[in-house]
């Protein structure tokens, strides 16, 4: 099967890729760009491990055909830090001890970042709903949920200081 050209912006870098028509975005990211921070847990859109941000929207990359992202802007876990400094959501996960095995973490962080970009100062219930597409098997969710609430405060404080 011939590969088809695909132009895409990933983490602020423009790439000219060649992908097979049936490939998912997840496969293109992991196999063509070696961006393995985005994980595959089920390949069926059930676990949320593969969540990335496409033009501002948290999306499961395992359900997204690679050719559907032509010309779009994609952010993965590798693209979150700015000048080497982790994103406030990443910082909050570190400070709250929310990282266990780490398979669900990239997807959960991306879902949280996209959510907090749209919703300042959410309630715990809203955070739980925002993360309900992201399965975790290690820690019972308490720490990631708290980390997202703390991250929202960090983001608001940063905006106030700007």
């Amino acid at each position, binding site marked *: 099967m011939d590969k088809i050209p695909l132009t895409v912006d990933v983490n602020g870098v423009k790439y000219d890729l060649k992908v097979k028509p049936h490939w998912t975005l997840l496969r293109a990211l992991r196999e063509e760009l070696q961006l393995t*921070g985005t994980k595959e847990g089920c390949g069926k859109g059930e*676990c949320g491990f593969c969540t990335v941000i496409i033009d501002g929207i948290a999306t499961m990359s395992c359900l997204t055909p690679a050719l559907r992202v032509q010309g779009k802007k994609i952010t993965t876990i590798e693209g979150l830090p700015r000048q080497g400094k982790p994103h406030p959501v990443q910082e909050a996960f570190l400070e709250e001890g929310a*990282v*266990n095995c*780490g398979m669900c973490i990239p997807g959960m962080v991306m879902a949280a970042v996209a959510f907090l970009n749209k919703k300042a100062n959410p309630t715990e219930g809203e955070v739980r709903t925002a993360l309900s597409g992201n399965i975790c098997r290690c820690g019972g*969710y308490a720490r990631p949920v708290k980390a997202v609430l703390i991250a929202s405060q960090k983001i608001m404080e940063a905006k106030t200081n700007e």
Partner: protein
Amino acid sequence: MSKLAVVGKDYQKTDAFDKITGAAKFCSDMTVPRMLHAKVLRSPYPHAIVTKIDASDALKLPGVKAVLTHDDVPKILYNRDYHTVWDTLERDNYILEKKARYVGDKIAAVAAEDLDTAEEALDLIDVRYQELPAVYDPVEAMQADAPKIHDEIMIGDRRVPVRNNVIRNTSLEVGDLEKGFSEADMVFEDRYATQRAQQVASEPHSVLVIPEANGRLTVWAGTQSIFGLRMKLAAALGMPESMIKCVRTHMGGSFGSYLDMNIYEPITALLAMKTRRPVKYVNTREEEFISTARHPAVSYIKTGVKRDGTLTARYLKTMMDGAAYAAHSAAASYCVGGWFLSMYKAPNMKYEGCVVYTNTFPCGAFRGFGHPQQNFPVESQMDMIAEELGIDPVEIRLKNHVGLGDDFYYQGVARHGPVCSCGVPELLEKGAKLIGWQEKRLRKREISPTKRYGIGVARGFHTSGAGDKRYGGDTYEYASSIVKFNEDGAANVITAGADTGCGEWQVWCQIAAETLEIPFEKVIMSSMSGITTDEAPHDLGTHATRGTYAIGMGVKAAAEDAKKRILEVAAGILEGKAEDLEAKDGKVYPKKSPDRGLTYAEIAREAINLGYGPIIGTSAIRPSSAPPAFGVKFVELEVDLDTGKVNLLNVVAGHDCGRVVYPAGAECQLGGGVQQGLGFALTEDLVIDEETGATVNGNLRDYKILRTTDMPPVQLFFVEALEPTGPFGAKGIGEAPINDMASAVANAIYHATGMRFKELPITPERILRALGRI
């Protein structure tokens, strides 16, 4: 004990930064040049003989580099279980089979240039099967006319015929059971069943095998034990262990699912040897779901009691589904008995366990290793006894639990020793207080015409490691580590111990820092992802809740040895005697003149310069004990009588792991156990279709794991009953948190509705059926 500086405090976990940035490489993330991709052709039938197999079309497909069938594999029977000593294991697998024994059994394997080609090649392999009758129920499998799943297996070097599909019978009697029942005022008898639940480690199993030019194999694999994998892979391939180098990586969870070699490691190794190219295999989630699970069990339980709640006799008979290949089956059945005997005191007790082959996919180790299978019957019946006798459920547990000085059976029915630390009374009393037990038990249960409120309790425990060697060597248990100083005074911990994601590396670094009396930041876990069996000393790795207790004990001893060595070297440099020196706060100084000290960095640097060599401490320990780490769960819920749905309102979970070394990690373990246990109670059940033998719901859509929005508020607490044999008083935490959760839920549902469910999970369907609504 002096005040602890590092143990008991929270730090940023050793591997957290790598994982939060996506930099951490799991095995499934690995790629190497010239790497091929493997796929396995699986049987569509539950029981069938391969009569013909033709791979010629597959081999003609461009990009296909090798196809293997049963004809190409060593004719060595293997068993994949890591922790049981080889000579006692039922060996019943070939790397690829001539006879399929479950839907999904391993028939052929392909290596190709890319995954698409490997998948396409599977369709081109022509296999003819002769179907055989299949059996899925262990009781039916024992009947004289049942299909024979294995004719003959190997145990050690002996050929052993299999009779009535029975893998093993286990029996132990303490005291005189019949006498115990004759002394009872009342006797309770019930039958309970627990289901085929799956570990669902977040990362599907994967392996990368690189054939080296010198004939050795380098094996990257997510595994709880690089040495266990090396042992079992060498055995399956018929190679010396030293020809294989297994590499530790980050692991995406485990819960016991990585406590055995799976079918993929030897298949991938053979493909790599045949093609002389690196080969990688990654499970799909659907394949993961038929790779391993908890052994389903049906138990008959009988308990004799006096009117005051004293137990006179306890009996459990468990029939366990041993699946198509033995793996951990015999050990799991054996351990059910040990856990049962250790739940409550009675002068007369008996356990009988039977584990039987069926045509279902292999089961393996799953967090709790047989404990939930007996906890559900025991804790359900304890509630019934309490109600009948008019005793509070908390009180009857306080009265009868195995505690200080009592015998604890820590790894099956043969291995036991006295309990030396016990937080059970405090767990029950504190948990009751936190949830408001007294007041809430009396609360009105009818909260609306269709909703009922209930509150329940259950308790359990798990071992910390596999214990000592007094009772015969059927289980490996051995801890060994290296601690060595760098020239700047920082120290490295070298251990084969795996971090399944729960922070084991963190715990070992904290233990080393505390022992060496240096800041946590100055301890490095050597090659988190990358240490191998070539350089790490032998240690069986992370299982049986032995990480903190047993491996931690090994790390502590190695650090003590390094500290001793640094004193000896300092004595040489200072031209004095080691016994006149003291090591404290990263410095060594003469006891008489504390101002003349040398820092660890100065000593480590001088040691090399002056020819003392690097400062290295080592350890080699078989722990003398395996203390129980106790837990308790309280749960409040409401049952909707219209829909059958259980709405979880609140959980209070307590655990006694002795000294808490890394609090954030301990909380995640306990909270994660609550989540997994609630799933075991209410939703998680892998269903086998009795027509086809296929797994019906082996995917994350139909196998329901609790999500953020399903979780109730969970309050966690710890009781630190310090363990005299443990490092800094620590015991384990890993497995216990799941063991008693489902029992507490079942007890709360009974309290809410008056309906006693004896089969897990308690789904809306089962509730509606019990209500006569469907």
